[in-house]
């Protein structure tokens, strides 16, 4: 842990995540599917990066590998200064709960826990105490103060995703991974959620990596990585909407 903490300062200016020759395939022989074919990628810290691509382009697999949820078949992944391929399952789990935050598409919250309990979950799993001020500030910013005692089934879709964002941020992670965070939301709730993610980057220097296939969502991003057939087609820095459309459209 001390080692990663020492590395933290350069992350705000340096690279949050890096992959070299990252490949992931499923099955063997005739049924082998190559989801990722040798990806070299440097994701800068303190920015909101969107990973885009059509269905089956491997964007979710890329995120799973970056976040230590899935084991690459080949290549290396370094996140927050930690080489993930050198960690065993337990170390990887501890790394995730100490250094990463997650927002998923539909299923994000444990149904039997209240909103507040869901937010505190990563800290509780790590056996760490809650930073009260940070918790209150987060809950205030996300407009959840009066929803803390509710269970997920009693919250709207937008509220559920805001709870998930609060949970992803509560332990000040090095990187937040968001997998289609607006997939199940209407446009108003989507805008809210994306705005919160962008504010965390702008105001707190948070690093966020977001997988999405929605152009509107990608418009909130600083950078966009376009993935096609398991390979990086383009890594656009602060693209204009036109450039983005062109990059995406060119694949079709």
């Amino acid at each position: 842990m001390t080692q990663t903490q020492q590395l933290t300062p350069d992350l705000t200016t340096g690279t949050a995540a890096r992959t070299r020759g990252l490949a992931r395939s499923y099955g063997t022989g005739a049924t082998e599917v190559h989801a990722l074919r040798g990806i070299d990628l440097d994701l800068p810290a303190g920015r909101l990066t969107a990973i885009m691509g059509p269905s089956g382009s491997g964007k979710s697999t890329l995120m799973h590998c970056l976040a230590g949820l899935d084991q690459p078949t080949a290549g290396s992944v370094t996140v927050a200064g930690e080489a993930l391929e050198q960690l065993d399952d337990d170390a990887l789990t501890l790394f995730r709960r100490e250094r990463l935050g997650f927002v998923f598409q539909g299923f994000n919250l444990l149904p039997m826990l209240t909103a507040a309990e869901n937010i505190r979950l990563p800290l509780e799993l790590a056996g760490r105490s809650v930073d009260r001020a940070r918790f209150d500030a987060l809950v205030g910013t996300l407009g959840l103060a009066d929803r803390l005692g509710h269970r997920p089934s009693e919250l709207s879709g937008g509220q559920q995703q805001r709870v998930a964002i609060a949970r992803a941020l509560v332990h000040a992670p090095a990187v937040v991974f968001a997998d289609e965070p607006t997939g199940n939301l209407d446009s108003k709730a989507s805008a809210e959620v994306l705005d919160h993610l962008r504010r965390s980057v702008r105001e707190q220097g948070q690093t966020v990596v977001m997988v999405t296939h929605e152009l509107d969502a990608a418009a909130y991003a600083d950078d966009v990585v376009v993935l096609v057939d398991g390979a990086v087609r383009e890594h656009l820095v602060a693209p204009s909407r036109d450039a983005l459309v062109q990059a995406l459209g060119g694949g079709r």
Partner: protein
Amino acid sequence: MRTVLLASLRVHTRRYLAAALAIAVGVAFIVVTNALASAARDGIVAGVDLPYRDADAVVSDIDGSQAAALVDRARERGDSAAVLGWTMQQVSGDGIVADQVDVGAVADDSRMRWQRLVDGRMPRADGEAVVDVNAAKSLQAAVGDVIRVGSGARAAEVEVVGTVDSPSASVSSSVYLTWDAVSAITPRFFVDSVAYAAAGNTGGLVPALRAATDGTVQSVDDFVDDRTQELAQGVDVLGYLLLLFAGIALFVSVLVIANTFSILFAQRTRDFALLRCVGSTRGQLLRSVRREALVLGALASALGLAVGAALGYGVVALVAALIPRAPLGAVSLDPRWLLSAYGLGVLVTLVASWLPTRRVSQVSPLVALRTEEVAEVSAAAGRMRLVLAAGSLAAGLAGMGVAVASESAPAMVLGGGLSFIGVLLLGPLVVPALVRLIGGAAGRFGGPAMRLATGNAVRQPRRTAATTASLLIGVTLTTAVLTGLAGARTSLDDEMKSEHPVDVTLTGSTATPLPGDLLADVRGADGVQDAAAVPGVLAKVSNGVGSLTLLAPPGDARVVERAALPRPGPRELVLPYDVAPDAGRVTVLVGDRKVRLKVRTSEGFGTAGLVAPETLRALGSDGTRAVWVRADDDADPEDLGGDLDALAGPVAADVESGLQQRAYVTRQLTILTGAVVGLLGVAVVIALVGIGNTLGLSVLERRREHALLRALGLTRRQLRATLAAEAVLLSVVATVLGTVLGVGYAWVGDLTLIRPAVGGGLRIPWDQLAIVVLVAGVAGLAACVLPARRAARTAPAEGLAAD
């Protein structure tokens, strides 16, 4: 729909395993019961006719003196009469003393001797005996040994001249003497029957015997038929009792199966909705899932039959090998039983699946179109359920109140059953509350795993309640039996103490008093807490009692259970039951002094008569005639008996020990407790299969949750711990609730049945109950091993991707 049926059976086989196991165990239980009962019937009935093979008539329902009269009649006429029966006597040999050994008689006429000679020869004179081969081992008696049978002046020394096999379970004994030798030892011989063979013409024998005796006279065939039927009935009753336990096991199976179906169908809701979308009718869907249940029941019951038959033969063979004296014959499985067991297994499955399948047909086709997870909301308890629960609880409590007031067993069973149904109905309210309570308390120390487990355990109150209900039944019954029998043991112990006011007596029966140093020697023996010398005299007692030691019991509370020992009045003589004559008064003669005393009977002080100290003074005591011993509480009855016998031998004193009989009764109760707990154990095992099953199915359901938790940083170990905690929580809650209920029912049972019969009170066997809770906890842990391993194996990304 057949394609769907077959496909779903194929796909869901693994998930049905637990339910199939529950049914198979229940069915196998019934088959094993049949196998055991048939072997026992065969064994007990075998050889029933053997003692009567060469007889012409059988006389039964008579006592020892009537039997003696028949033997005399036969001897006068040159007929043969063999007395079949036994007397329980002390048998002592070289260093071994055994109380309560069954001693029987060999017939005078060699034709009527049904015992099969194994070694040596049959007795030719009254001083000779044969011993059963198996009993010879425990008595350590070999051909050529001299053993002493009986106690006191009537005891006889006999030489073992042979060993025999006793192939008739109904009238076999351990030791056989001649009829004359046995009747000299005791006037109280229990007569089962007398086999009578006429020397010449057998015509008119039955009427002639009827005229000669008060007993029942039957032809040999009639008697053997009646006896066979009677014995078989006894076994059948035992078989039906065993079926009661099979019934309990099957009832628990119903709960497990119903729960399995509920969970499986809930998981398949979207499949069913899709089927409805593509055009299957409600009826088609319902028929399809019911057929699924039918197939499951049919296959599992068949498995149960096979396993049960194999186990039945195996158990009988094992018992026969381990306990050669056990009256077990050949196993013959009754096709009607097998058919009933099979039918019951299928029926139980169908009944258990009825409600869950009905819910399937109510699935709306729209469910299939929803993309999000089907949120399964199960209400805690409907109003109807609450009303029913309150009603049966109230009725049950009232019934038990009536039972206690009127000492009525049926009212107790009815009240107990109703109140238990009330508790089961309240389960969805009570069980989650208890889980929260216990889980909350443990969560303070248990960390996130415990807190998550508590949350998981209470989120579907009905499922939780149904899962725990099955274990609750087993634990409640087990606890009730353990507590009830512990109470009965206390009561019996008290009664045994009053039957045996003195632990061990050493009574002299010769002309000279016992030597003075015997007391010190006895006090020095291992396991002797204290001993006292009892003054007395050897007297001649009229009315056929003969030479008997008279004692004036000491008032020594350290040796004698004071309240239990009869205190003879000045003109009274207390005699042991097996010595006392029928007369109300006897004359007692010591030298030329003579008194007439009123006879009272009692037991537990050896072969001696008790008189008041002034009576003894009047007759003239000549010193110590007996030593009475109080044993240490933890003394081994066999060892102590042997040690004291070694001391008593040289001075010709008889040792009588109440300890062995006490130990025997205690052992019987222990065996009974073990048997009942073992039989209930089957139900508990099924319940644990159910817990593992619920957990396993829940794991499938919570795949995404587990993936999420793993993504957020729950380690594999923590995930396993969460599932383990959930299983242990469920089993401990069921066990604690069951223990409390069981003790409550035992208390009611004690008030209703035990207290009116033998007094005494409830004793809670804390140690045994602690073991029950511990075993349930550990078993709960074992039940979660497979599901937990499976859950922990899934990589987080896999779970998240599954959609």
